[in-house]
């Protein structure tokens, strides 16, 4: 008989995994507890995702072509002068994206089960199945499968069942605000990113345009208790631009900061937020969730030869984990370094904003974000960028030292 796979969680990660599995000939069951809910999310996806996942442009609410970065002392730079006419950052609603991907997985042959997974029973031997216990339509059910893909997000039940360990996480808090028309015009194709100790001690605060409103929010890892104060901070920083708006929704969600200690155990693999694949610095998760789901699904299909053979932990490690780590670990490392250097202190943030004014920096960062590959750059420009980075950091650090002396006097 064919290999049976259960994908727990019907977001971008789960739907992509289910799509790859079903297309490859594996009998796939996709579990989603609330298909109509809108997961709190920034909602930005890179350009390459539209191509790689064949997303129709009708899903995109806004084409952001300008990103404004604002430093603690309100020095402002505009990202986006290097964008070509067909390039943009796509903003969309999660409920729209998620339901599109889910129905596509269904059309490829995955069986969609609307229900809440309550427990994952581990097998007693290497040939016994995993049993997924869930409640659907008010009744308790269970399903036996051979392979499980855990795509159930930051508070993953699957991760808990296999003892995958914990990760530190950030809290992202945002308010959706409907602005008066003339203020909304300003945000038509523009997103803003605010930096400073008043809005977040270790991350950034944002104003992102959505379909007919803006999302104003902030996040933090280490000061979760003060998140409301930081939210007040960002409301204050953006006050002239959001004054007169009406708050239509308030939401919060955890964002993993690093991968879980265990991402594959037995015949269970974690993908997306459940695995902890959110990048540092930008906090981007949607693309990596979808991509990891797809790579995991394809890996299982390959290892099982189209669903004909049983797979084992070694197969999952080799075909999924190894592929993923080899391809993306350096990306994650670079973003971690950037976050450490530029987000940790006000002077680091000032330095970052100053550097972002440079055209080469803008081009390199936007292209690596949009296409997820390290763009082949001009060697000489790279050297100049490195030199100006060091120079800017030194200058801003000196200034911060001077500020400290002023503080001590006053």
């Amino acid at each position, binding site marked *: 008989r064919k290999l049976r796979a259960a994908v727990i969680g019907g977001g971008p990660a789960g739907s992509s995994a289910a799509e790859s599995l079903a297309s490859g000939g594996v009998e796939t069951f996709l579990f989603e507890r609330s298909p109509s809910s809108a997961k709190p999310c920034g909602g930005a996806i890179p350009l390459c995702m539209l191509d790689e996942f064949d997303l129709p442009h009708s899903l995109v609410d806004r084409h952001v072509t300008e990103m404004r970065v604002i430093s*603690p*002392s*309100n*020095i*402002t730079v505009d990202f986006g002068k290097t964008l070509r006419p067909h390039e943009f950052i796509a903003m969309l609603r999660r409920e729209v994206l998620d339901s599109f991907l889910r129905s596509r997985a269904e059309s490829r042959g995955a069986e969609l089960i609307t229900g809440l997974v309550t427990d994952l029973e*581990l*097998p007693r031997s290497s040939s016994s199945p995993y049993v997924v216990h869930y409640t659907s339509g008010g009744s308790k059910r269970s399903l036996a499968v051979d392979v499980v893909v855990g795509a159930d997000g930051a508070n993953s039940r699957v991760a808990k069942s*296999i003892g995958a360990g914990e*990760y530190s996480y950030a809290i992202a808090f945002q308010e959706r605000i409907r602005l008066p028309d003339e203020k909304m015009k*300003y945000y038509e194709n523009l997103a803003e990113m605010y930096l400073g*100790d008043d*809005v977040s001690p270790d991350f950034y605060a944002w104003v992102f345009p959505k379909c007919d409103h803006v999302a104003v929010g902030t996040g933090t890892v280490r000061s979760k208790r003060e998140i409301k104060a930081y939210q007040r*901070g960002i409301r*204050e*920083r*953006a*006050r*002239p*631009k959001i004054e007169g708006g009406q708050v239509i929704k308030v939401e919060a969600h955890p964002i993993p900061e*690093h*991968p*879980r*200690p*265990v*991402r*594959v*155990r*037995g*015949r*269970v693999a974690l993908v997306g937020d459940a695995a902890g694949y959110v990048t*540092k610095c930008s906090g981007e998760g949607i693309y990596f969730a979808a991509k990891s789901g797809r790579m995991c699904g394809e890996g299982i299909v390959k290892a099982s030869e189209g669903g004909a053979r049983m797979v*084992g*932990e*070694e197969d999952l490690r080799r075909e999924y*984990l190894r592929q993923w780590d080899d391809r993306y*670990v350096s990306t*994650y*490392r670079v973003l971690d*370094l950037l976050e*450490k250097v530029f987000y940790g202190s*006000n002077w680091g943030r*000032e330095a970052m904003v*100053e550097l972002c*004014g440079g055209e080469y920096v803008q081009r390199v960062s936007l292209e690596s974000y949009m296409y997820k590959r390290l763009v082949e750059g001009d060697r000489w420009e790279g050297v100049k960028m490195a030199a*100006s980075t060091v*120079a*800017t950091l*030194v*200058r*801003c*650090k*000196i*200034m911060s*030292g*001077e*500020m400290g*002396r*002023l*503080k001590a006097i*006053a």
Partner: protein
Amino acid sequence: MSISMALFSPPAPNLRTLLSSPRSLPKPRLTLKPSPSLMPKAPAFFAVSASSDNGAGAVPSSAVAVEEQGEPKVAVEPAKEPERENGSVASAPEEGAVAVAKFNDSRWVGGTWNLKQFQKDGSTDWDAVIDAEVRRRKWLEDNPESSSNDDPVVFDTSIIPWWAWMKRFHLPEAELLNGRAAMIGFFMAYLVDSLTGVGLVDQMGNFFCKTLLFIAVVGVLVIRKNEDVETIKKLIEETTFYDKQWQATWQDDNSGSSKNG
């Protein structure tokens, strides 16, 4: 304007280092902060304060005492400066916010510093520009302001030439470190000579001595305070931490893989 006051205090060592966090205050600087109106009286005043800068622990109180007794205007000025900035805003109507005072300075024009107002003896007084920007940033850190599209801030620190930074911040520290290196070098050369009889020129030819010299130079550069050793250890651990988190799932390889098949 305040840079001219700095010129009167060369005898006092400038203890700031490039990359370390702010610690002890060079005492003459304390009295430099008063606004320009003090200029004519400055020389005598600072001669007094410079000479008082010999005690270590008692320095803060003594400097303040000098400030208090010497020139009444001095003591008032530091307190007045923030008020000056506050006062100039009270007249301008705020956008409905209650107690927030906006940053204001006559030299801050159009979202950047108007360099023409920093002229001293015909050329731009870069130290004053640096000081002004430092104050602006500190003000905004303590009183965050909403960013507005009507008056965007476009100041860039790179307009200040590199040599202004060098002269003010790097050179004093370089002097300090070179002095330390020279003292260590002289003493070690003497010691080695007295123990082994090998003269300085012959010492330089020896590989072991060259290695020791290299270690001494690097040590002086990298470890400037006792805390630096701890900082470096923590830095090394931090840079590899994220990597360890990624590799964690592979550590599981050897243990427990037979548990679930």
